């Protein structure tokens, strides 16, 4: 079951990322690139395919591990474990003297389970900011200046021209 789900997640991520690459390559071909150049450019723009896939997989796994269904299931397991141990301790009571010890054991058990449960809840990862894997967006450099801006025929470099303007 777990393996099937893992494979399904893997397939969906792969399909989504491949779709992106194919769309980019298609757009490149439409713009006049050869098939090889279009695909190479798509891969280059995309970056490390396997690394991106791995990041997506980890995020999905984390989300599923803390899904409401998973939490309900773990709460049920927790309650059943506690109840089972309580009944087990109660079945050992054969005299009034034993009552005190068993109650202490039951109390300690529930405290321990509660501690583990709260620890588990506290382990829910904090929302990592979407842009923690910078650089994600870059600012394109300004349009290069036209050659005429640099070479005015005077034979001076732009820096020399600026200095002489002062």
């Amino acid at each position, binding site marked *: 079951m777990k393996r099937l789900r893992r494979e399904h997640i893997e397939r*969906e991520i792969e*399909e*989504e*990322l491949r*779709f*992106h690459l*194919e*769309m*980019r390559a*298609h757009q490149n071909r439409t713009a006049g690139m050869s098939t090889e150049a279009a695909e190479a450019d798509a891969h280059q*723009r*995309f*970056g*490390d*395919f396997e*690394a*991106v896939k791995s*990041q*997506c997989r980890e*995020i*999905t796994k*984390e*989300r599923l591990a803390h899904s409401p269904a998973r939490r309900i299931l773990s709460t049920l397991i927790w309650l059943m474990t506690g109840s089972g141990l309580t009944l087990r301790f109660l079945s050992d009571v054969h005299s009034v003297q034993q009552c005190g010890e068993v109650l202490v054991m039951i109390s300690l058990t529930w405290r321990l389970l509660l501690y583990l449960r709260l620890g588990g809840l506290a382990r829910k990862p904090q*929302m*990592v*900011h*979407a*842009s*923690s*894997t*910078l*650089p*994600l*967006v*870059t*600012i*394109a*450099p300004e349009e290069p200046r036209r050659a005429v801006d640099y070479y005015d025929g005077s034979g001076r470099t732009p820096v020399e021209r600026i200095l002489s303007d002062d």
Partner: protein
Amino acid sequence: MAQAKPNLLQGTLTMLILRVLAGGALHGYDVANRIQQLSEDVLKVEEGSLYPALYRLEDAGWIEAEWGASENNRRAKFYNLTKAGRKQLALEAGHWERLSGAVTRVMQTA
């Protein structure tokens, strides 16, 4: 010496993604293209890195994903803004307005 590419402030991509998705469901490829088009080619999304960002936004409950058919009839994963995502967008847009206003004021007077 080569100049480093200027990056956008951390957190800005979240706002940009939420903003383009406010216009309707889009797949990842279109999200990247829309950001680039709307910014008139000034902003370029690092295409691969966009996906972990989308997954994190989905994890936060700000967007939701659904498989559907793309314009060329291919199966594609479309992202949509949720109610919580709209709230987050309003919040981030407010922060951005304050920040950009403040930076502009400093640059104009300093």
